[in-house]
């Protein structure tokens, strides 16, 4: 087996790390929470970082009319399937394909990941803006519009008394490494093709 195909094989397998490790984490810090509240987002699940964190996030958020974080979202069915399918495609390419297909897989993964991120953003936006009209507390922005409570897609942001952090976790690293490896596989394959 060619070196580039071996790298591609690795690239196809790496995203499976998403089934072992969380993809993302949102952390909420506030003075009354010396241990911050935090939730992990997995490929197929939300989970508490400390026991009962999600329950307590829901309890805090209901004051401003935010919905409860659902137990499951449709994406939890679609994303795992997506990863399994792309891994299978990646494996087939690794065994059968040449370097051009590696680039195809790389672009496919970039497109799908971007779509995933966009979907996540839409979900966050809805979660942070689609508030109960009977909310106990209503806040407005300086321009008079209703304040939203959307956590950042990536990075850190102050929301009222909370500081929200949103950063990728180990699962995302596996995905990123997989994508990067496919590009390296492509470059390696291309170089070999020229030298041969």
């Amino acid at each position, binding site marked *: 087996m060619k070196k580039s195909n071996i790298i591609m094989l690795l690239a196809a397998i790496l995203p499976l790390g998403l089934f072992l490790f969380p993809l993302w984490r949102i952390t909420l810090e506030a003075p009354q929470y010396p241990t911050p509240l935090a939730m992990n987002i997995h490929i197929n699940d939300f989970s508490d970082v400390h026991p*009962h964190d999600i329950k307590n996030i829901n*309890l805090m958020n209901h*004051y401003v009319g935010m919905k409860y974080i659902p137990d499951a979202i449709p994406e939890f069915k679609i994303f795992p399937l997506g990863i399994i399918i792309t891994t299978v495609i990646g494996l087939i390419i690794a065994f059968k394909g040449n370097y051009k297909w590696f680039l195809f897989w790389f672009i496919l993964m970039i497109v799908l990941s971007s779509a995933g991120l966009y979907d996540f953003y839409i979900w966050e936006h809805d979660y942070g803006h689609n508030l109960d009209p009977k909310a*106990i507390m209503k806040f407005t922005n300086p321009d008079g519009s209703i304040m939203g409570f959307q956590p950042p897609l990536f990075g850190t942001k102050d929301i009222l008394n909370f500081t929200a952090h949103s950063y990728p976790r180990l699962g995302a690293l596996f995905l990123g490494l997989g994508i990067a490896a496919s590009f390296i596989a492509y470059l390696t394959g291309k170089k070999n093709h020229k030298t041969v």
Partner: protein
Amino acid sequence: MKKVLKPIVTLLGILVAFTSCNNDSKSNAGALSSSAAEKVYVKPGDHDEFYAFISGGFSGQLSVYGLPSGRLFKVIPVFSQDAEKAWGYNEETKPMLNTSHGFIPWDDAHHPDISQTNGEIDGRWVFINGNNTPRIAKIDLSTFETTEIIEVPNSAGNHSSSFVTENTEYVVAGTRFSIPIPQKDMPIKDYKGNFKGALTFISVEPEHGHMDIKFQLIMPGFDYDLSHPGRGKSHGWFFFTTYNSEEANTLLEVNASQNDKDFIAAVNWKKIEEYVNNGGGTMMPSKYAHNVYDESTHSATSTIKEEVLTVNPLDVPGAVYLLPTPKSPHGCDVDPSGEYIVGNGKLSANLTVHSFTKMLDAIENKKFAGDAYGIPIINFEDVLAGVVEQPGLGPLHTEFDGKGNAYTTFFISSEVVKWKLETWEVVDRQPCYYSVGHLMIPGGNSQKPWGKYVLAMNKITKDRYLPTGPEVTQSAQLYDISGDKMELLLDFPTIGEPHYAAGCPADLIKPRSKKIFKLEENNHPYATKSEADTKVVRDGNTVHVYMTMIRSHFSPDNIEGIKVGDEVYFHVTNLEQDYDVPHGVSMIGANTSELLIMPGQTETFKWEPKQVGVWPFYCTDFCSALHQEMQGYVRVSAANANTPLRWSLGEDIE
């Protein structure tokens, strides 16, 4: 060895002194240069180094302080009802205060002692005695709640209690007063020879701490004052001070102070345990309550037991000896090595120290001065290790720093006196303000004291604090004992009478402290684990309300169909699973107290409405931003009305 050590220590001292000159931006420059205020200052957000558990005496409770700051953290209800926590008011804890005399919601709590493993404090439980209606309580230090109370039969003035052996095999409960055993109607003047004193050994199951009376030793009719377990070489023995060896029954201040020497009773409990395990002893009918709080059902049960195993000391030769000790000794204290037994003869000019080794030797060589009711009395000179000559007036209690020094409180001369074991010389003394009773060094009753502080507990504070009418606060005083000389660091007020204390490093307890009760592990028979399951159920005149609470509402919050004359039980579950978020609830006209319910816990109170109307209830603990909105109504109709039973949340009752 010492010759080598000294220069090294001096050199280190110089080095340390120079080092601290170089970074004087930090204020830890050493004992001599820092002020008392700095030494007790625990800056905001920092934790104290030690927990101190100080009994409330006649308040019946146990208070929790931090040392060195002297800050009060909690008052743990034990033997007295406590409206703050609904202890003894709610249906779950009422059984804890049951006795063979019925519901007794008060006692006189004296001597806390922390559980031990291998002679060292393990920080799992605190035991404490109720003097008046004899009881021993166990407090679980993962929740800081009283989880077991056992009544002590055949006992009166349960004073030489509750001290634990070095693996917490036993907690002892020695009677103060001798009484007829079994109780009977007889002339008081016939006390002598007829009254008896029971020394009770309560076994502690090693894993869960479950208590059970293993045996009672029925001793002569003296007064038994205090006690301490042997440790190390003397493990297996227990020592009890006595007074009134005269067996007087009236005007004891005179009549019980005639004998030049009373006794320390030395009890070889291992020998008696063996005797009992082989079927020895006599079962005696005797009623006593055993109350157990179950953390999973959040409820207590009270069982009345019917008999107790008694042991006549004469039936176990070699198990009990009397050590003559001047004069009406109070504290009975064993040093960390287990060799020295200090009898604090409160009417004696000197402090008497016995030797365990000499005691064994005297027993072996039968050096007896006679006997009392058949119990051998060892010759005073043959057991005496030494005497601290004229250290002060009225010695009460001695503790040890683990470095060869002993610290004794003197009630009459109001001071703590430091003296050396084996040389018996006084090396330092510090005044107390005023009339000090007991003292505490963290780990004092163990093989490993943390000899950094001594805490003195004072009975009188006239003019030390702002006056508060005729009754002024009692107080404790903290001394630094890490140097050669004791240094008074701090005064702080205490609850009730700060009678006695036990302490240990915070790190033994902190990591095991519970934050919430898990809702899924709540096995309370009336628990409601979700709002969807809330309901109101009528059974004749009894109505059960299955209610939940969460920030910031009750479910249900509108209830109709209750009638005058009903007995309404509110079973309220706190659905929160977040640290430090209890809710409270109280109902107008309820004849108990509010409930203060921890996350995941269920508690119950009973309400008997007497008048028709629409009556509010509300959350009593400032729980959240919408705490003030956490409220509800109960509609009460006439006894003969036919208002249907209904309940709701977030909608009008149809």
